[in-house]
């Protein structure tokens, strides 16, 4: 980023705050993913358990990837709005984790 760009930055630090909000959210997702992995790998390590763990790992990576892309967009001087696709990806991962929990618990 150029120095003139830094001077033109919003004094309210909106992009930075948004970036940190994404960081907090990935942290929350990581905690849930760890709990989900713990739940998935409770038993004997049968193929279905390993499959479940793989699905959780994929969901976690998808979440991190969506957040990473958005964080890179936010580095722009005037960041574009959040794409509905990114919002849906994040929501999809959250709902999928909940659905996984229901499947395992029942």
């Amino acid at each position, binding site marked *: 980023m150029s120095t003139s760009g830094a001077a033109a930055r*919003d004094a*309210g630090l*909106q*992009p930075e*705050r*948004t970036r940190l*909000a*994404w960081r*907090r*959210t990935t942290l*929350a*997702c990581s*905690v*849930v993913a760890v*709990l*989900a992995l*713990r*739940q998935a790998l409770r038993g004997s390590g049968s193929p279905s358990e390993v499959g479940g763990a793989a699905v959780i790992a994929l969901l976690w990576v998808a979440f991190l990837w969506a957040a990473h892309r958005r964080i890179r967009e936010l580095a722009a001087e*005037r*960041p*574009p*709005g*959040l*794409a*509905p*696709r990114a*919002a*849906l990806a*994040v*929501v999809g991962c*959250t*709902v999928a*984790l*909940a*659905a996984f*929990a*229901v499947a395992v*618990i*029942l």
Partner: protein
Amino acid sequence: MIDFVKDVRLWFAPRLLRDEGETPDYRFSLANERTFLAWIRTALALVGGGFAVDQFLPDLRWGVRVGMSLALLAVGAACALRAVNHWVRCERAMRRGEDLPPSRFPVLLSLGVGLVAVAMMVVVLLGWTTGR
């Protein structure tokens, strides 16, 4: 209900959203995005709570434990879906220069979480556990 279906179409069609009104100040959109993320974290916390109840409260009776767990997971999933819907509606309202949409979801969520907490207290006070 019809309105909700229209909103859901917006989730999947960024162009429909972009066709509405004018692009607001990017800072407003970022504030809306942070609100969305705060709701997602709330949803993740509830889902995590659902996992935690099942994993860390083995002394609860099966029915109580599973019921509480499912309640938290269902509220968490609803919270996530509502987050994206509310984000889209706020974004559209800002583009059109309208007031932000009112919502009764926060009240329902508070009542739901309060209900789970009271249920937990009742369970503990009545001793509906298998441990002791």
